[in-house]
């Protein structure tokens, strides 16, 4: 009986506070992290869910505020990046990917030391059109 009461109380607590605490805490953690450690590179383009009909796409990112060198990793159909198709040091904020293969999903991220950026993806249509 007592255990049930504790569980109900816990469920009520979670119901009331979990969402609020997660939202507030999540935001604070990110902001504190930014102020203390700066920001790393962040993929910007192509946007999520984008489908390319071309054989070439420009990958664009924000550099962030950290000074370390950035390595671009591109993986085809493999979100784990076990064997990236491309791994290259980059200095600017864009890189052109050529000879994209139709029907594939491209995953790409930017490594700064051992800290990866969020993984960005886009698809290439099976039917490339060169207009």
């Amino acid at each position, binding site marked *: 009986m007592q255990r049930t009461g504790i569980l109900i109380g816990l469920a*009520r607590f979670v119901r*009331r506070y979990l969402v*609020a605490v997660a939202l507030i805490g999540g*935001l604070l953690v990110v902001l504190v992290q*930014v102020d203390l450690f700066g920001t790393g590179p962040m993929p910007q383009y192509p946007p999520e869910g984008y489908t390319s009909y071309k054989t070439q796409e420009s990958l664009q990112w924000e550099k962030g505020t950290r000074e370390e060198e950035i390595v671009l990793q591109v993986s085809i159909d493999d979100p784990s990046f076990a064997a990236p198709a491309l791994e290259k040091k980059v200095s600017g904020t864009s890189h052109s990917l050529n000879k994209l293969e139709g029907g594939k999903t491209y995953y790409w991220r930017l490594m700064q030391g051992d800290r990866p950026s969020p993984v960005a993806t886009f698809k290439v249509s099976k039917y490339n*059109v*060169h207009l």
Partner: protein
Amino acid sequence: MSISEPTSTAKRTRRAGRLVQAFRVLRGVFLSYGHLLLPAAAAVLTLSSTYILLGPVLNRSGDNIYHLMNEYALAYGFRYGDNPFGPLGLEFGIPLMRFYQCLFYLLNVGVSIGFGVDLRTMHNVTIVVCFAASPFAYTYFLRKLGLNRWAAGIGGFLSMISVAAFGNSIEAYHQAGIVTQSLGGLFFPWFMGNFIGMLRGENRASTTAFLFAVAFLSHAIMSVFAAFGGALYFLVSDVGLRRNWKRMAAFGAIGIALVGFWVLPFLEHTYEKRAIPDSIIRGRGVHWFTSVSRSELSMVLRTGRLLDDPPRKGDERDADDKFMDKISIIGTLKTRPPVFTLLTGFGCIVALFGLRRTSLRFLLSGLAFSLMLFAGPDDFRFIHYLPFIKHIQTFRCTYLVEFFAFGLAAAAVETAARSFFDFARTRRRFLRYPLFAFWITAIAVGASWVGSEILGLGEVHLVIRDQTILNQMADAIRAVPDRGYPFRMDVVYPGRRKIRHAWLAAYDFHPYCTHWKGVGATPGFHLCTSLGGMTRNGNFYALAGVRYVAGGGDDIKPFIDAKDDEGDPVLERYPNGKDRDGKDNSWHAVFGTGRDHFLRPLVGEPLPVVCTDAQWIWMAKSWSTRFRNKLWDPNTPIPMRIEAGALAESGLLGPASALMYLDHARLEEDRQAISGFAAEGGLVISPAEIDGVETKVSGETTLWDMLPFHMRRTRSNRPSELEREELDPGLELADIISFQPRGRTRQLFAYDVDTLEPLVLVLPMELFDGWHLELDGKEHPLFATGPDLIGVHVPRGAHRLVFRWKMPARHWAMLIAAFAGLALVLGVWARAIFRRARGRRELL
């Protein structure tokens, strides 16, 4: 003195008693309703600065004018019996009701037509009234949320001077011209309060659904925020689904019924018919369409620029100021210290200590959530899964941020004021009075500052347009004879183009349509090129038709005196000289270059194209870039889009010698038609092999270079070349006589066409659902042709063509459902009123 008369002492005592009693009553009224003085003060202050709008005047804001122009187009359409949900000749022929602001337009135009009110006056009255009433709505929301009445009142008062605002901001309205959100600014907080009340069983589901619908139809973003806000309240409060599922179901059903007529076609349009898909635009316009980064969010929070204006203006602004202007409201004019950021920060601390209260928990969670929304899915991945997130522009998230922030700021102010009041009340007498004096002074100074801000914002932003030049322009244009067919007029005005269009619309000249450029005669074409230029008009201008163009200064000098071979002026010049104030206006010229054709023949060969939306956009743009100066050339291919799976029914394979098959999604349904076409010698161009058909597969070569030789471009088109050499771009190929069966309607065009050869004719309208063509009384297929053109392939001979827009049946069904929903809501209200009245009689 009689015995019965009271003594003077007794009189004084009685009088004093009455005074005390009156004071007590007043005190009771004040304590119960005094908080409403705050939103009332905000409303009065707002009215005192916005009253100058209460008339047929034009405010300075470009977007304000633009919306007014749309309303005029709607009113114009009503006059000729056009369906308001159909195309009205604006903006690529997009139906006006596919824009965000359905209800605002319908309300203003409906009242204007129904009661004969000047449309500008009605437009302004709606803004001012909604604007002035919105503090009450916000106060109501905070009260329903559970903040005490003074905190709610303070929130309503403060909300009027937000920077970008969720709808309650002078700056938002009058600097950026977000006028259509005025309804949303009133109804969104009202809805949120009602929604919370509904979950508690205090408000009816039908009323909540009605308020939701009104907020939704006032601006699409309000509905998204309403859904986010409602879901968040559900998650952080004690409201249980089991207790509320019936109410929620009724709310959902009525709400969907009320908004379906607009939202479903709107979504259809947004996802399928938008000229440029968001996925392409959004990736590049990062700050407008996706999000700010974490570091940018951190910066704007630290510097207080999210809720307060940038500290520097004009050229002195630093990069951060410019950035904040860009993502909030495109250049605010009033400078304000970061007071609101500090107040909100204090409110966050207060809320953290009071996290047990649902109201504070909701406000704090809401602020955190809306800031995450502002930062976007790059930094907070869960946002990626929220509905419609791809369509939410960053700057709009500021409205939601402020919706929560001002509640927190109000809680902070109320807490501080109450704490100090309690502190003063419990001190010794010799300290109590100075402390109270300080308390009252601080409140008075704060309220005065906020009040002066409200007034100041109005004075800074409300600038009425000088209408002299606009009137003069309208007089000149009025002298242009009616040609009996739609034509374009354009005049010089030293301001935003939208303003002059709106002004002309006010004088019954139909607002511009972006198509009517470029199918005029060569001098007009050159003039258009000179005045417009490719950089300004993009790839589209050569396709459309210049009927009248205008310019000023050196740009037009070569054209003013241009003569044709017979010595006649090539361009007809419309009135200029002195304006009504006697000012020299000779630099101002209006030219007519019109031809008798609205339906324009293109002499090239039709090229059927089966492709996706994105492919079509690229196809159409690249075609216009490549062939814009070759419309007269019979070698020019005319791409005509066919939906995948509908190749056989298109009837277009007969006259075509090549087919571009780019979308293989429904290849099986088209396979037979493709095989037949190839068997008869047609060339099939595809990005991939098609089994059993001889296919030309695109690789490194462009699709255009794979066309048969006779359809390829014959000469290069470098910018230095003359853009078009011919005297006539092919208009003589067909004898086209237009007649308008229903005045200047934009939904019914009729032509008698006589042509010696089969021909592609184009109507400058986007091919939206609902367009039909009758050729000699029989249904005939239509095709999207190039950018923003409706194309038809006409066989040789004399024909009657009738283009007609009919509202699709599914849209009618949604409209009927909306009326049914509205009738239901009104019925519920009527029943409640009746019951209440009966109850009173019984009591009596």
